[in-house]
């Protein structure tokens, strides 16, 4: 099949750009560890309250300006529903759902992760700017979905 010369040029340039995007996203994902949240650990969704670390949800200091936030998500709330950290802290979120699929999104940051039941999801973020960050569930989970929210207070 013959292609017109200008079509070959068009496809080469545009596909070249796509190739560039692929290389950049691939490099960021595999060399810089910036890939999307994909934790593989599982948990029995019926026994979240009895399973460590979710039997004791909350914020734990794990290092200098470094925290782990262990959180459960259930209709239509987060537990804990408020955490407070000093500016410049990095927080490693460890999340699971006690019922249906929820979404974990922190407005004004890159945090955005799906939290299906049966899996433990992980995502980390450094909070530099002080303020009251809005956290919301961004996956439809039932009639009260729009009320599912919490706060991260950065001082």
């Amino acid at each position, binding site marked *: 099949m*013959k292609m017109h010369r200008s079509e070959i040029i068009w496809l080469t340039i545009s596909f070249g750009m*796509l190739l560039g995007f692929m290389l950049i*996203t691939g490099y960021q994902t595999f060399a810089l560890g910036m890939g999307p*949240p994909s934790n593989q650990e599982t948990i029995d969704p019926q026994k979240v309250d009895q399973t460590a670390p979710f039997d004791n949800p909350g914020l734990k200091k794990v290092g200098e300006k470094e925290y782990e936030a262990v959180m459960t998500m259930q*209709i239509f709330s987060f537990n804990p529903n408020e955490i407070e950290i000093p500016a410049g802290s990095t927080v490693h979120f460890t999340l699971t759902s006690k019922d*249906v699929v929820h979404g974990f*999104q922190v407005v004004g940051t890159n945090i955005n992760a799906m939290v299906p039941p049966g899996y433990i999801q992980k995502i980390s973020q450094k909070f530099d700017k002080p303020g009251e960050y809005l956290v919301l569930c961004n996956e439809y*989970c039932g*009639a009260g979905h729009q009320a599912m929210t919490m706060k991260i207070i950065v001082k």
Partner: protein
Amino acid sequence: MSKLSTVVDRRDAKLSMAHLYVGYVAVLIGAIAGLLQTFVRSGAITLPAGIGYYQLLTAHGILLALVFTTYFIVGFLYAGMSRTMGRFYDLPYRLGWLGFIIMTAGTVLTTIMVLLNEGTVLYTFYAPLKASPWFYIGLTLFIVGSWVAGFGMFRQYFIWRRVNKGKLSPLFSFMAIMTMVLWLVATLGVAVSVIFQFIPWSFGWVDTINVLLSRTLFWYFGHPLVYFWLLPAYIAWYVVIPKIIGGKIFSDSLARLSFVLFLLFSIPVGFHHQLLESGISPFWKYIQVVLTFMVIIPSLMTAFSLFAMFELSGREKGARGLFGWVKKLPWGDARFFAPFMGMLIFIPAGTGGIINASNQLNQMVHNTLWVTGHFHLTVASTVALTFFGISYWLIPHLTGRTLTKRMNLFANIQTILWTVGMFFMSGAMHTVGLFGAPRRTAYTTYGDHPDALGWIPYEVTMAVGGTILFIAVLLLMYIVVNLAFFAPKGVEEFPIGEVAEAAERTPAVLENWRLWIAVSACLILLAYTIPVIDMLEHSPPGSTGFKLW
């Protein structure tokens, strides 16, 4: 064989029209829901007792994304095959009606369940939200009905090939078959999930469901679904538009090649909807991201062919200079103008799609209103405007009437209203989505959080756009009813383009179905086997069902 008539057979026309009627009723009801959604989200109204926001949203998604599109597509493809291959033989014709009946039974059943508030799970019905079993049974019937319609088309094509040994099939029919093959392969995923997971679980025959597997099977279907919407629009662009503008099809073989590439690459890419999910390894997500980028190629080829065709036909009419041909396009002809606006909108729409699919970049937009803005450009503008543009000649052609000057004018106004309305609605959705406003969320200020309060002006803009769109839908209904029942009797052309003389012969390998289906199956196996085995081997205990609405 007798010489092919250029008018679709009366009997086939009725079958096709039956599909279009259902499709347009779905548009009207779906649009009412859409308008109300924009009002609710902006805080302008609260719904009267009983109706929930998510119930409306479920109806909107099902009626517009599934019912309108599928009925329109089946009706359009039946008409086009009848036009290009001749009157349907008895068996394929009967399969057409049988498919219609099964599909409609399913649509009615599912709609009743949504109205009864027994299926408020949105059109993606993610487990472990659990609807009534009848909701899922309705969906199954809908899909099975569409398969039966597809079998009718396959049968017609098969008989034609036997009768016309060695001849190249008409481009329209080839593309129609490709669309239905794509649909068949894609819907297998969701059918397996609904029949083997959802139905037994919702009846209570099994206690739990494998959530991640159900989501994976859904998105195995969910991405090719968007190509199932897009391919019929491409058929109109490749085959119909050249005739309308007085040009020729740029290249038959490249057109066929692009459709083959869609079959190959549009299916093994569903993970790009699950990029932020736990339980799927980053490696397999990335593989599917790469395959997603491959499926952009045939769209780039399509864009080239179209503009080459526009330029060639303009030059043939005496256009000069680099862009002189633009003036030669029939801007006043709604049969051209509506799909052309669809093509234009596909440029930002496709760009947005590349952003969504770019692996970690997806974190910026996933489940925000950006995504809703995105598919109101793709399916609700590019595809919808093209389908409207097809209707302006297809409906009068099938009902033995004509598109009058007056209706043509209204159709052009409709196109402009739609484009303007979508500019506001989708533009506001894109912008506020980047600020973080979530999709699929009723009115809320999250306890008067300043960020959420800042979204309200954009949600008001969405309502303004939604209102313009709704007016456009009413105008569309007026045109459709006029063309179906009141327009003057006559013969409206069913435009089918001819291939440019300079174009070379089409290689027979492009029509080798066994080959392409086999390659497609290999790619699917490559992209899915290992991650799905992984999912099954490391699956957590399943989930019980929840009815939370």
